[in-house]
């Protein structure tokens, strides 16, 4: 059971959020190639370690929150708004 620091609401329980997947992919420009859109829709890394993810605060402010989380230890390094540039720690957890 994670505790996630929502930039708008403060630290809240995981139960208020809905996981929405990889936040490292960016939607291509409308005139981009089919391949670019295909990669955007389907191609994902599956990292063991630090990852940047979307957690939608559906039971709170309904903002999409960016979360830097370790997929192995489940530690959370930092959180931010959709357009914040978030850094990942160099090494593993703690």
């Amino acid at each position, binding site marked *: 059971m994670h*505790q996630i620091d929502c930039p708008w609401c403060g630290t809240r329980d995981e139960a208020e959020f809905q996981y929405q997947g990889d936040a490292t992919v960016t939607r291509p420009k409308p005139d981009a190639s089919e391949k670019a*859109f*295909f990669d955007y829709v389907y191609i994902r890394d599956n990292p063991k370690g630090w990852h940047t993810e979307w957690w939608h605060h559906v039971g709170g402010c309904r903002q999409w929150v960016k979360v830097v989380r370790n997929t192995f*230890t*489940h530690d959370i390094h930092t959180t931010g708004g*959709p357009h914040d540039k978030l850094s990942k720690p160099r090494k593993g957890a703690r």
Partner: protein
Amino acid sequence: MSNQQNRLASGGAINRSNPVNFSFDGKIYSGFEGDTLASALLANNVALMGRSFKYHRPRGCLTAGSEEPTALVEMRTGARREPNTRATMVELYDGLEASSQNRFPSLKYDVQSVNQLLGRFLTAGFYYKTFMWPASFWEPVYEKFIRKSAGLGRAATEADPDSYEHSHDHCDVMVVGAGPAGLAAALSAGKTGARVILVEEQPFLGGNLCLERDEIDGMPAAEWVEQSAAKLAKMDNVKVMQRTVLFGYYDHNVMAALERVSDHVAVPAEHQPRQRMWTIRAKEVVVACGSQERPVVFDNNDMPGIMLSTAVRRYVDRFAATPGKKIAICTNNDDAYQTAALLQDKGIDVVVVCDVRTKASAAAKAAVKNGIKVELGIIPAKANGWHRVSSLSLQRLDGSSYGSVECDCVAVSGGHSPDVHLVSQTLSLPVWNDAIQGFVPGKPTRPERSVGASSGSFALADGLLEGHRGGHEAAKAAGRKVGKLSAEPKTKRIPFGSIESVWRCPGDGKAFVDFQNDVTAKDIQLAEQEGYSSVEHTKRYTTLGMATDQGKTSNINGLAILAAARGLSIPEVGTTRFRPPYSPVAIGAFAGHERGMTFQPIRRTAMHRCHEKLGAVFVEAGQWLRPQYYPLPGEDIMEAIWRESAQVRKTAGICDVSTLGKIEIFGDDAGEFLNRLYINGWKMLAPGKARYGLMLREDGYVFDDGTTSRLADDHFFMTTTTANAARVLAHMEHASQVLWPELDVHFCSATEQWCGVAVAGPNSRKILQAAFGKSFDFADENVPFMAAREFDWNGATARVFRISFSGEMAFEVNVAWRHGEAMWDVICKAGEKRGLIPYGTEALGVMRIEKGHVAGNELDGRTTAADMGLGSMMSSKKHFIGLPMARREGMTASDRPKLVGIKLTQKSGRLRGGAHIIESLDNTFTDASLGWISSVGDSPAIGTWIGLGYMKGGMENEGKKMYAHYPLRKESVEVEICSPHFFDPKGERHHG
């Protein structure tokens, strides 16, 4: 009633002034308050408590606690019957009813114990080897056999009459386990003012302290425990939770614990749950779970009367019940000498202490001095007896015989394993410690520390010191201001001594490693020979360490035997990872109040009571309850649906459409925003107009549809399907917050702010005019087809949309939620003489199928706009979500299944959703399937069953005769493929 012949005359922590009666397998016994079922049975000289899982061998209790693998009983009767309950954990109460499991017809004479003779065939992996050929036997023969022999006890077949609760808590310091180390930790952490929670699985504090022989701070252990408990009770910042097992250690230091609130009474007190599940967040954790003693692996080591040395000690010390009158002890370490000394104190005959070690330890010398017979370098060879041990054959380390001793109980100690279960749940890898021959907790990955026996420090003095320090440090780490550490509780320092393991005492009989799953030393060796030599493979192939005890007593012995077979050391073989739950947890406790009618919230529309008054039958639509149909007296469902859909087309009907998702959208860029969400254009839609819209997912498939209206230049009102309301909102939030934050658009859900009715049929206009009177002019000129208007209805805002799902002239009227009943009533009153009837979702479904309108069944996440015949809606002048992927080759291929109408041509039978469309009855297998039926209805307008579906070639099949095949019911009916627009194909009726 028997006389408790094995009850000692004095001592123990039982309440002798409160005798209680209980029954086991129908026979009445008596015990005392404070007993467990196991201790009371032993006091009554009952050693046989169950039959084993695979071989149905007679079994007693191996332990006196939570790790018990074999003394599993069925508790209570009727709806409260609970299987696989550990007799060692069941607290005795008056009237307790328990019975043994896994035996027929009785515990003493069990038919399936013949399995022992078949042991040769029931070795490791026998399921995989035995039940393979022939394939035709899988279902009719093997499955029945496996189902019959699988599992242990029988679950209740009636609904559980008791309730289970979920609760939450937070603390600075969580102390797990209230043995000496845990008590010391809770005391020192509590003194700092930190919020402390101490959880203890047992109903008593003190763990494995020997109440009579151990001494702390100059007083007997029993007194020290009592004083410590009193001190903790005085601290407002400390909460002590007994009968509570911490079974899971999860992310972010969240712990799950199960409190057995009412398991120790026959029936929960009024308003009390049976059990309570706790979710506790702790800043710091002190793990003081203690250790688990290991059995010794020798032939027939599973016989009733053979149990762990610490268990014998607890039965005698705490429960004043001796498991035997002549007790032999087999050990490889000093701890068992404490058992010998206690038994001697109590005047119980210790026939021999066999010590693996060839050199006498200080403890061995002291025992000899006290007149106890000690044999060095001697190990057990084989237990003998029938239903209970009667003698023990001994051997030297080289396997040569050393005679035998008569005994009715054997206390065994193969060493102690720190309880690393919880810590290993945190991904911390346990580390092998050769000095204690066991795994100790590895480097912490969370804010936790292990103290005392669970860190491998078995000496009481060390446990008290570590606990005392650990509690203090944890409080400090949790951010508490702590003073100087006070002096720790003192006890005489007795070093734990050395240990020498013989993992498998020589022998060629059945020597059990995992008592619960009947895994023998030979099974493990066989698994290794057959290639299942990785520890995780061995576990799954032999079932070593599985089931309710999670291998607590078998883990290290199993690893050691596997390591020996592979010629490796134990740390080289490694250990399997322990997973939650630490102890078995009833499914009811996980469910808590989320069962039956409180499983999830029920959403009712504003007009729910109106529907109830009309006798509606409700259907669940997600969490919503919607009227499915309104039967007249004597009418069945099919008749009601037929009548409702016919009547709407003839006169008029009213339908509650409040459950549709509704979203208010504002902003200068609202039109542009909709343009990017929907496949069709929105910027040119004039205020006061509604439009049908279709949106795709980013992968190009259809996501949702609905009508959206423009109420002002910068104000749209969107509707979504009932099922997708939440998903569409989240999708829009992603689009506006993540994809296009530059757009000036704001929106929020208004599903529960506006309630709505659809009034459809030739008389709908007249009825609404009569209902709303001068408030609004419903004339065609004022509200033409696809118009959206707002008007004032006696001070309340009403919205009217001239849209039609049924194909009839129809209006949807929305008012604020609180006015829903008033609106329903006023329309129904106006409709009384104009043939207005209420209709439900079924009739609505029939009418939309007659019109070929797609709905949820057609929007199944695998269809494109073109598949639905709506390809021409896709705008070529703009970009929208899903466009690039919808253009892919496979998404536009001509052979994709496309929407068609299906009509039953034969006089009898019916259509069914999910049926396959096939060309001939010669081949009814899936390779012959040309498509499927998605929606069906018995149509009054067409006079037979009709349906919508998807079929290769789509409308190219028009007029062809096909079969609808439904394998689940082995039904096939003849159908004709036709246009999905069955009724009023030119769409003239909705103009009125």
